[in-house]
């Protein structure tokens, strides 16, 4: 099977390049497996074209493969041959079953966690001064209105949280309010879960639409209290 050594090595090298080297080129990203598969198929096509260009190279390339398949003179490789002839139809059957059988899994949830806010809620700055008094007031409002779900420790584990899916945000987690601007929080608190765009799945959200119950000033104070209590800072323009 010497004629296959070089093509196999070439395929392995190309795979390793695509999987581990290309993603590290500046500006690049990990390649999806479907794309890697496509490139490998192209490589195989190129190898076959190259190997069968002349009469001699054709025989040198296909000869060992043919002999393996027909079982002629392959000695110890007989077991491998039988294994291949049995496994190939099994693999085909397995893949076919997988793509045609009815799935038991519920629909995949592809909810966008932080969908884009409407234009009028970008770029707002907090009109309330960041004073200890205002922070205290904000924390007081937080305790009254927000802590049942978001928790007294700002961790999303309030006493009322457990039945809700998606669960209330954990403000002490660095991927929540620490990644957002105050303007974004103002939108989310004021307009609530029902204010989300479709990719945010508003029908599932338990977040109240606080504009019905709280004046804007209280919401801005809650934002101050929330960042302070969760020991986080808002994301800034830079």
């Amino acid at each position, binding site marked *: 099977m010497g004629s296959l050594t070089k093509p196999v090595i070439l395929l392995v090298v190309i795979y390793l390049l695509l999987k581990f080297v290309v993603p590290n080129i500046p500006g690049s990203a990990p390649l999806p497996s479907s794309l890697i598969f496509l490139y490998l198929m192209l490589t195989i096509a190129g190898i076959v074209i190259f190997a069968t260009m002349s009469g001699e190279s054709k025989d040198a390339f296909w000869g060992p493969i043919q002999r393996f398949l027909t079982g002629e003179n392959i000695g110890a490789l007989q077991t491998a041959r039988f294994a291949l002839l049995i496994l190939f139809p099994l693999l085909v059957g397995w893949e076919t079953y997988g793509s*045609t059988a009815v799935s038991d899994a*519920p629909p995949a949830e592809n909810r966008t966690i932080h969908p884009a806010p409407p234009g009028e809620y970008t770029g707002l700055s907090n009109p309330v001064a960041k004073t200890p008094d205002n922070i205290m007031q904000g924390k007081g409002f937080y305790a009254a209105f927000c802590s049942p779900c978001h928790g007294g420790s700002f961790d999303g584990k309030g*006493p009322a949280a457990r*039945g809700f899916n998606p669960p209330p945000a954990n403000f002490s987690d660095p991927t929540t309010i620490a990644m957002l601007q105050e303007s974004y929080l103002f939108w989310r608190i004021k307009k609530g879960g029902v204010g989300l765009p479709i990719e945010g799945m508003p029908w599932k959200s338990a977040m*109240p639409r606080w504009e019905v119950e709280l004046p804007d000033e209280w919401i801005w104070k809650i934002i101050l209290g929330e960042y302070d209590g969760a020991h986080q800072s808002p994301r800034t323009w830079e």
Partner: protein
Amino acid sequence: MTRVMQRHIKESAIAVAAVALLVTGAAQGFAQESVAVRAVMTTNALPVDDPNAAAWNTAPQAQFPLSPQVHWQNRIQEVTVKDLKVRALNDGKQVAVLLEYADPTEDPADAAALEFMVGDKKAHFAHGQPMAQVEGGPVNIWFWRNKDGKGVDMSAMGFGTLKTQTHQDVTAKGAYSNGTWKVVFSRNLTTDHPAEDMQLKPGEFINIAFAVWDGRKDAAGDLVEKGSQKAVSSWWYFRAEAPPDYSGYLYAALAMGLALAFQFVLIRKLKKGQSA
């Protein structure tokens, strides 16, 4: 096959079996956190009147956590029922859903409800309240209260719009024993009013949400949980299973046959070519 090969095969078979046992054992432990209710198909009569029927044991149990309703006014900060167990059966014509939950006392105002979206539109779990950027549809609510002893078919599309439907299709029956309520809701899979009633197609996942009221009274004699003051859940999934579909096996067998035939033809052709 040589001795060595036989031993290798035996060893790998044992390893695979061990891993399989481990995984199924772990899966049992995770059964508490469900995302979907499976209404398994049965050829027997559905136990629509009997929450205690043995037939329920053939249906897998899903469990969902409940929250006190703190999403909209009037809120309640603490409720009696914290978890809900759900089983369901269907016979191709009707569906029956069994709710089971712990409630220390049996009260006339004890109540439970199922909620569904209607038609193609999404609906917010809070009675289909309007959403700012998504056009929502109504919800269909199946309500049961102990003192009424029957199922009530209801509709809502926003706060304060809950109403009893003019046509009633839902039946419900509750049974209380030893601090546990068991309530069966049942209805035909489809009804004549698709604009107001959820229509269930076997094999299709739909959304379901739950609400429970403990009808206990406080020291002053007032109901603690009533109206919007209840235990609620978020949207989860529900599916009425269709009769088993073996078409996947059929396609697989066909594909395997084709692969085998391909192998035969290819090798025969190659052999002919070699001897030529």
